[in-house]
């Protein structure tokens, strides 16, 4: 089978992910779209590893997974913090003004 098909699939997934980032307004869904883009990149790496006959691409995909895991922790921590602040902001408005 022509390995270009894998690359085209990766391109489609990447585009859908990028589309999700610009269209959706919920921060969590935006972030999931970024993850989808990273997955598409991983697929491209794995494909390229097979077509070039080197394992560097698989190593790259492996590193991307590690990076993505760290990034998810940071991103979700930021999102949770904002959510807590915004939800309580309406309740604590008086406090905010006093400050």
């Amino acid at each position: 089978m022509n390995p270009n098909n894998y690359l085209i699939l990766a391109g489609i997934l990447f585009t859908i992910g990028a589309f999700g980032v610009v269209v959706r307004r919920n921060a969590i869904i935006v972030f999931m779209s970024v993850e989808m883009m990273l997955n598409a990149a991983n697929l491209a790496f794995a494909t390229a590893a097979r077509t070039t006959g080197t394992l560097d691409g698989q190593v790259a995909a492996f590193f991307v997974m590690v990076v993505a895991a760290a990034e998810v922790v940071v991103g979700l921590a930021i999102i949770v913090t904002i959510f807590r602040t915004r939800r309580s902001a309406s309740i604590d408005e008086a406090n905010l003004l006093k400050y």
Partner: protein
Amino acid sequence: MNGESVVFWITAIFAVVGALGMVLSRKAVHSALWVAFAMVNLAVLYFTLQAPFLATTQIVVYTGAVMMLFLFVLMIVGVDSSDSLLETLKGQRLLATLFGLAFGALLLSGVASTIALRDNGLDVANGDYGGNIQGIAHLVFNRYLLAFEVTSALLITAVIGAMVLAHRERWAPRKTQAELSRERTFTSQVTPLPNPGVLARHNAVDTPALLPDGTPSQASLPKQFRETSHEDEAAKEVTS
């Protein structure tokens, strides 16, 4: 059509459906499940790409850890969350759609119009060190050793970040049960506060309880429903 093509076309279609489901679902939870679905399909594709290690890691790290973390956060934020944390702009959706289509066309034409890539296969590379995992390990601990070491900085940063933003500390030592009961005994209100609606005509939370002399007791209400303008007065009522 060989076995690989069959697997490819089925999982490729599933993966695209999963990605589209993520973008088009209204609720964040549905999006997360669609992403997990797409990721499992990608794991299958890794097997056909002679990357068994990646396939396993994909399932363990992405669907197992990353997506579950997403679901955890969705539970914290509220399953029904569809609130927007980013700003809204006029006509943004239309522009974004146009941008997406243009970008997709550009990217896909770039990728698709390329000359067919040679399919070298990984049999040689996998065989060099006795297997796929051994080959990857060789690269990680030799060629990409620095990258591997630096990744630890990334993981430490993530841990510190989560601690800094989410770990709540106490500014005063927690009161023991003995202290709490002693404090309470020295106030005039030793018994619990009257419940809302007790001895009143309604039992709604915003209806004050009636005291034995017939006057409504603001102390029986949750703070938000008290009539007094100062929160302190209600507290005084309790303690005096």
